[in-house]
């Protein structure tokens, strides 16, 4: 497995552990031997494009889907053998914001609390507290149909906390939200994690993983392609990204070969150290006529590109859950 790992697994308490998880639908391999370790009391992001298997993994970890093979434990409990006990300690909120729009905010939380097995008064107190802290106190007596998208997400998140979960799964929690609402939700997620809850979130936005998570797993085609802290991942592609644009597009393959980079949208991108530009230019100049050269610090976008062979989704785009994957790019890896 490329990229860094998370220290000594013997001493680290793991909230989620997945071993060689496979989920197959006929010919389609939604998960193709996924291995994953998520330390407790952290925010962990599972990053990948549409169809990478993110939602499938969340469905397995939250007991909704039994994998074809492999093993997943959540809070030390096996999701296939002890699904009932797993459900007691997890909370789930999804991109579809599964609140009942015909119930009021309060009723939604009360229903969830009842199903968690809370007593009625306990339920009411907890619901009131959550509505308050998610800024929904005034809207609590209104039916959720009248809520804005952001309010629904907040209610969904509040509902997922009714059982005071140890581990919270958020499946693309900000997909389709505007920037302001998204930032507010990020704050909520940080606050939840600060109370010691392990947060596992899936996202296709590098920015989101970078902003929230202390560790990241990049998955593509149902498999882990890289994992580590945001910094570790960035360092694997080099500190600087040099973008070279040739005068003629026909020179792209030659330029990629000489510079040792990847072709992306009419340019060649090369990861390097801060002092590496000189070395690259020395190799290229005289071989291929250059139109432009630019440099930038490596971002998670570059990591993503390096490992998956395609660019990440633009933030704000609406995502389908687990559609058959996008065309497979060439998969050239840097060492």
């Amino acid at each position, binding site marked *: 497995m490329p990229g860094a790992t998370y220290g000594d697994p013997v001493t680290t308490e793991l909230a989620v552990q997945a071993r060689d998880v496979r989920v197959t639908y006929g010919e389609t391999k939604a998960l193709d031997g996924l291995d994953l370790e998520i330390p407790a009391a952290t925010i962990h992001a599972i990053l990948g494009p549409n169809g990478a298997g993110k939602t499938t993994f969340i469905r397995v970890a939250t007991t909704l889907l039994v994998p074809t093979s492999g093993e997943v434990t959540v809070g030390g409990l096996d999701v296939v053998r002890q699904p009932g006990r797993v459900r007691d300690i997890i909370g*789930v909120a999804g991109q579809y914001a599964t609140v009942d729009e015909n119930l009021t905010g309060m009723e939604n939380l009360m229903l969830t609390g009842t199903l968690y097995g809370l007593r009625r008064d306990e339920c009411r107190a907890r619901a009131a507290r959550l509505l308050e802290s998610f800024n929904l106190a005034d809207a609590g007596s209104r039916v959720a149909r009248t809520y804005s998208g952001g309010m629904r997400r907040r209610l969904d998140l509040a509902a997922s906390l009714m059982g005071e979960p140890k581990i919270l799964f958020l499946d693309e929690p900000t997909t389709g939200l505007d920037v302001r609402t998204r930032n507010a939700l990020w704050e909520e997620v940080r606050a939840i994690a600060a109370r010691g809850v392990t947060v596992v979130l899936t996202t296709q936005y590098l920015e989101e993983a970078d902003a929230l998570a202390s560790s990241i797993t990049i998955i593509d085609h149902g498999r882990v392609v890289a994992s580590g802290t945001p910094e570790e991942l960035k360092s694997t592609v080099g500190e600087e990204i040099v973008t070279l644009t040739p005068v003629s597009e026909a020179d792209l393959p030659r330029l990629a070969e000489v510079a040792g980079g990847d072709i992306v949208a009419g340019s060649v991108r090369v990861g390097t150290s801060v002092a590496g530009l000189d070395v690259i230019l020395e190799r290229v100049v005289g071989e291929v006529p250059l139109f432009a050269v630019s440099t930038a610090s490596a971002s998670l976008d570059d990591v993503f590109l390096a490992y998956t062979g395609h660019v990440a989704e633009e933030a704000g785009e609406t995502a389908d859950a687990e559609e058959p994957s996008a065309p497979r790019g060439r998969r050239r890896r840097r060492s």
Partner: protein
Amino acid sequence: MKFATDTWALTRRNLVRYRRNPQAIVFTLIQPVMFVLLFVYVFGGAIQTPPGVSYVNLLIPGIVVQNAVFSAAAASVAVSDDLASGFTDRLRSLPTARLAPLSGRVLADTLRAGLLVVVIFIVGIIVGFRPVWSWGLLGAWILLMLIAFGFSWLAVAIGVSVRNPEVAQSAGFIWIFPLTFASSVFVPVATMPDWLAAFARINPVTQFANAVRGLTLVPEVTPAVGWSLLWIVGLTVVGAYISIRAWVRMGKP
């Protein structure tokens, strides 16, 4: 215990959904009233009834049966809606009693049918329906809720099997028209062509309508009541078997 609590919590949720959805109220209430008015005043005059029995007295016990069945059929769409929207997933990710989403659905639709039937009886009385006020009415009411219970299980089985609300809309209702019209609900079976009368006689809806007629008009427990109960047991067993099997297999390879 958890099963009872969860079933009731979800029953209430399902009933609130109907109450707060104006479209559902229109469908549930206006449509049967239109049927009553249409058949009593438009078609009724042209329909032959046995001597000494007014058409409205034959019709209302039939219409309540038709609506108990109709009302139960709504479960197909509701179940597939919840599956498609992700609400079912949320329930399944919570420590919900495993079968409570199914029992909560069936109980809600049974109670809804019970209420609907009372409304139609009242509308019927306004347009001239004259039942015998006796224990038979209570018996008919209970029988009608049992009918709704049996058909709810069948409808849930359809909803769980097709999973898509649009498909459930057609799959959940398509069998209802032949079943309720090719029966003794609107016209005496004897007036139908032989092949259709043969179907109408074995149609459970005919047994239901005749059972309710016996209970509300005489009152007496006719053999149709026995046949009705057998049908209800059959529907419940088949519907519950398919639903529960699909439910516990959900998410398994």
